[in-house]
């Protein structure tokens, strides 16, 4: 049996990880390391500041997806409306359209291999966090603590590694560049329909979109395999409400309103 390694949730998790934040610095080992809050502050400034991220109500991200080792590629569109509506669509030749989303209350996914499903638990939590710019800025209230744990190197670049703990108990790690303060790597256990999968995402090629810096290349490594996301376009305040409508097969799975 072939593992296609194209499950939508993995990509979603990669984006969710972009929305992770850090919490207060603790522990003795942190004495020689910069406090997490300082790293976050530097990062927030580097990507454009909080005010820039408060200017928009919706965002549309277009990207390409490549899995070089398997010779697969596709297109991806992510639509988000604040505070917590999101839909991601991936089209891969030979597989079809993989979709997942969240209204804030309902998280769901649908793909040609597995059908459609309303999802709950950690999977749902990761998806609902995604659209909130405070997650991207690592300022979300869902993070209960952050701690600078060590200096590390990713892709030949030095960075400070910070571990975050969320209200739900899950943990993630981001690595902040020593030079420009941007996040160059995240490590997390991504919730998937099959259980958690640990993945490392290398973030690079930050570009300015309307005064906000975002990484346009994300190399996601899972179980020794790479998926490359390349963002081609980010536009703001052009997502229509109708585009966020729940698919009929998901609506049918929801409890009927009294």
């Amino acid at each position, binding site marked *: *049996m*072939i*593992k*296609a*390694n194209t*499950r939508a949730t993995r990509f979603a998790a990669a984006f969710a990880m972009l929305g992770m934040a850090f919490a207060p610095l603790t522990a003795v080992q942190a004495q020689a390391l910069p406090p997490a809050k300082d790293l976050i502050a530097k990062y927030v400034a580097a990507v454009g500041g909080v005010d820039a991220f408060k200017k928009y109500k919706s965002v549309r991200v277009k990207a390409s997806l490549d*899995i*070089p*080792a*398997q*010779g*697969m590629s596709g297109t991806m569109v992510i639509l988000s409306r604040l505070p917590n509506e999101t839909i991601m669509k991936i089209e891969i*030749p*030979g*597989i*079809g359209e993989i979709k997942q989303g969240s209204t804030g209350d309902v998280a769901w996914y649908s*793909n*040609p*291999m*597995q*059908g*459609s*499903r309303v999802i709950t638990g950690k999977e749902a939590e990761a998806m609902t966090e995604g659209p909130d710019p405070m997650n991207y800025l690592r300022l979300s209230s869902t993070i209960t603590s952050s701690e600078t744990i060590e200096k590390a190197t990713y892709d030949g670049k030095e960075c400070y590694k910070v571990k975050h703990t969320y209200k739900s108990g899950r943990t993630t790690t981001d690595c902040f560049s020593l030079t420009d303060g941007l996040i160059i790597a995240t490590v997390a256990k991504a919730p*998937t*329909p*099959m*259980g*958690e*999968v*640990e993945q490392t995402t290398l973030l690079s090629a930050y570009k300015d979109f309307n005064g906000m810096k975002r990484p346009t290349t994300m190399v996601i490594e899972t*179980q*020794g*395999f790479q998926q490359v996301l390349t963002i081609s376009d980010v536009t703001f305040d052009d997502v229509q409400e109708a585009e966020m409508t729940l*698919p*009929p*097969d*998901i*609506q*049918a*799975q929801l409890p009927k309103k009294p």
Partner: protein
Amino acid sequence: MRRTFVSLVALGILAGCQTPPRAARAALGIAPLPAAAPIEREISVEIAMATFDSTWTRIRNTYYDTTLKGLDWNAVRRELRPRAERAATRAELRAVLMDMLNRLGDSHMTVMPREFTTAPPNDSDDDSGPGSVGIEARIIDRSLVVWRVEPNGPAARAGVRPGWVVDAIDSTDIDSALADLRAIRDARLRRTLFIQVTARLQHRFDGSANSSVSAAFKDERGKLRQLVMTRTPVSGTPVKLGHMPIMVVHASSQRIDSATASNRCIGVLRFNYWLPHVMPKLTSAMNDFQSCDGVVLDLRGNVGGLAAMLSGVSGFLSDTAATLAVQQSRGQEQRYDIFPRVANSKGERVRPFGGAIAIIIDPLSVSTTEVFAAGMRHVSHGRARIFGERSAGQALPAMIYKLPSGDVLLHAIADLRLSDGTRIEGEGVRPDVELPLRQSDLLAGRDAAMDAAIRWVADWNKSGRR
């Protein structure tokens, strides 16, 4: 440029094939390894070494057993690398790589030649697509026998009937290939090669549409018939998925309405790959079968596909989100759960099918098919029953990886067990009702496994268990 179409099995994708034995190589039609390197090099030393190193490293870094089955992997490298360096042809290099992979003794460890995995160019002279004469053949006892004949296909029009013995296909001597197979004593290796030999012989019937094949058959009276058939375009859907070879996907359904008042209908479903392309057919068929007493899933010859399909297909058949199987890769455990289908694309609530489930398998039922059959039987508490013959025993999750030589490596990345710990790899799935194919049945127009499955579904309903 001639367009090449080949089945996954024929490529040895499903192989845990310890191919070194001379008889095994002969059975597969693989030329003996040359004693010395040829004078002309087909690939450079640099490419050969990069391909070897890439394969060795990939396995070291991703194989699910971090001890690599207790092998000294560095020693394997030291031993085989010089051979890779001497390899002057792609075939020689593949033989070295297969020697490395076979030491792990698992299925889903093979090197797919680049000519089978590269999509034909758009400007190819040959745009005829894959063709077939409409014959499915199986090895029965000591012969290659026509199992199924596609209605109105070239073979049917030429008069070929199920049960005829295939004597030769073009220049391929069937008897010798089968004799070599019989010479293999190791049961597991024999089972693996049985699949590959069947597929390779079957593959002789396939080719580009509009091309011809000459074949000799022995008919029901033992009379030799020499026939020339022109291949017509295959009826299925050719699918190219990444670096995988082109797969021609078939899915069909049939509703058998009962003549008796006590029974309603029985649905029959067939598909040959676990790929998303079969889902529209499965969805419409399962809607149609909703009121039937049971369904028969005829998965003979289904060689597997995308493991993620397990959750979706089983979701048509169960309203319980049970775990079919669990895979264990390095430090990670993942489940294949049933995702019950509770709504359709029109937004209507639906219920998963609640009747009897008969699954038919054979030695060419491989991988995802095996997991599905065994998993459904395990979680369904008597509602699912398996008929036919023992399956291949090749059930490991795998990934593909393009090598510097252009060939594609398929390699197992996880072990897999049913939720009760049962391992299918190496063992196969044993049917509840074992019914081997018999030539006499085929000649008489009988399908013993299908007949038994249908009888059981009818009886299951009479017993009031639905």
